């Protein structure tokens, strides 16, 4: 089960290890205890947990591939 998709942290929930993450228009509460992040950082999320921080450029690249926009940076 390697499903993971990139999202942007739009809000850190105070006094907790959770944040609100936006996945291209779908927002979800995500467990951030495995990463050191701040608001507006991009993360890749697996099974409700952020497992790695992403550079914005890389996140957008993955999203474009998922959205089949045809933008291929390689």
């Amino acid at each position, binding site marked *: 089960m*390697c499903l993971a998709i990139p999202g942007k942290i739009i809000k850190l929930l105070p006094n907790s290890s959770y944040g609100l993450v936006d996945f291209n228009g779908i927002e979800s509460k995500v467990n951030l205890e495995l990463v050191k992040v701040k608001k507006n950082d991009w993360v890749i999320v697996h099974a*409700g*947990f952020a497992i790695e921080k*992403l550079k914005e450029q890389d996140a957008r690249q993955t999203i474009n591939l998922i959205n089949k926009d045809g933008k291929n940076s390689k």
Partner: protein
Amino acid sequence: MEKILNKINQLAKEIKKDVTLMEVCGTHTEAIAKHGLKKILPPNIKLISGPGCPVCVTEQRDIDNIIELALQGIPVVTYGDMLKVPGNKMSLEQSIRHGAKVFTVYSTEEIFTNPVIKPLNKGLVFFGIGFDTTTPMTASIIKKGITVYSTHKNFFPAMKALIVNQKIKIDGFINPGHVSAIIGLKHYQQLKLSQVIAGFEPEDVLMAILMLLKQIKDGQKKVENQYQRVVTNQGNVQAQKLINEVFEIKTVYWRGFGPIPDSGYELRKKYQQFDAKIKYRKILTGLKIKPSPKLKLCRCGEVIKGLIDPADCRLFSKSCQPENPIGPCMVSREGACNVKYRFK
């Protein structure tokens, strides 16, 4: 995209001989089949599937154990794929009809947020399935007081076992993307084989194949990272710490492989009050299950080692189909048999 394919074709010509690459992550298996990548590769480049499907490599004993716990009235929470895997008696899904309380979740977080599951928190057992990617999530809920039956596995030793018990020649590995995001790159050096960690879009996989062929042509046996946007050299140190705090590494049995040294995650003594294998020892050790004759015919163990293609199994697509599966390779969306069936 065409550039990559052209380069692959060119390298394949230059290499001339047959090359066997193994992808070891179930999500790669699915991505490759979904996008028809095998078809567009040059004829001397062969792609085979490895043991990358956590449900598929889980021992039948563990499956029977969790079903028995459910039948004994203990609420069981699991990831979706596990529901339909046939046990020797029945599947978890069928146990619901016998009164068992079984819940599927997409994330362990639902244990704390789902209004039906939350009240059962103290008494439930979470069936922990998955490789290194999913193990930290289970570690997290153990620290929050949830009892877990762990069949989590440390993926890398299986790659070692594949090379050591070499019945098939593997020239290179497409390494798992998100497992590597957790564990980093250093373990893979031990394998002394060409390896590339790949992302999951078809472009990622093709790029990884290109990089592998370059290595093979130049006789190199390095570990390269195509998925740099997510995977770092050291991996996710925080996640590794969390796994290490809650779990210790033990030798466990993998379906089709038998025991693989240092390949399983079991709860540490410190957390044994949340270990379902200890808490429910009486039920589990007393369990004697008659092996089902149907299950004996299942060749999932050979499929996950890449020894046979799903189509080589007599049962494939005849008596074994996603709606009526006999073994886990046909149940899981990442199982080689299920993937082959869906994208025929």
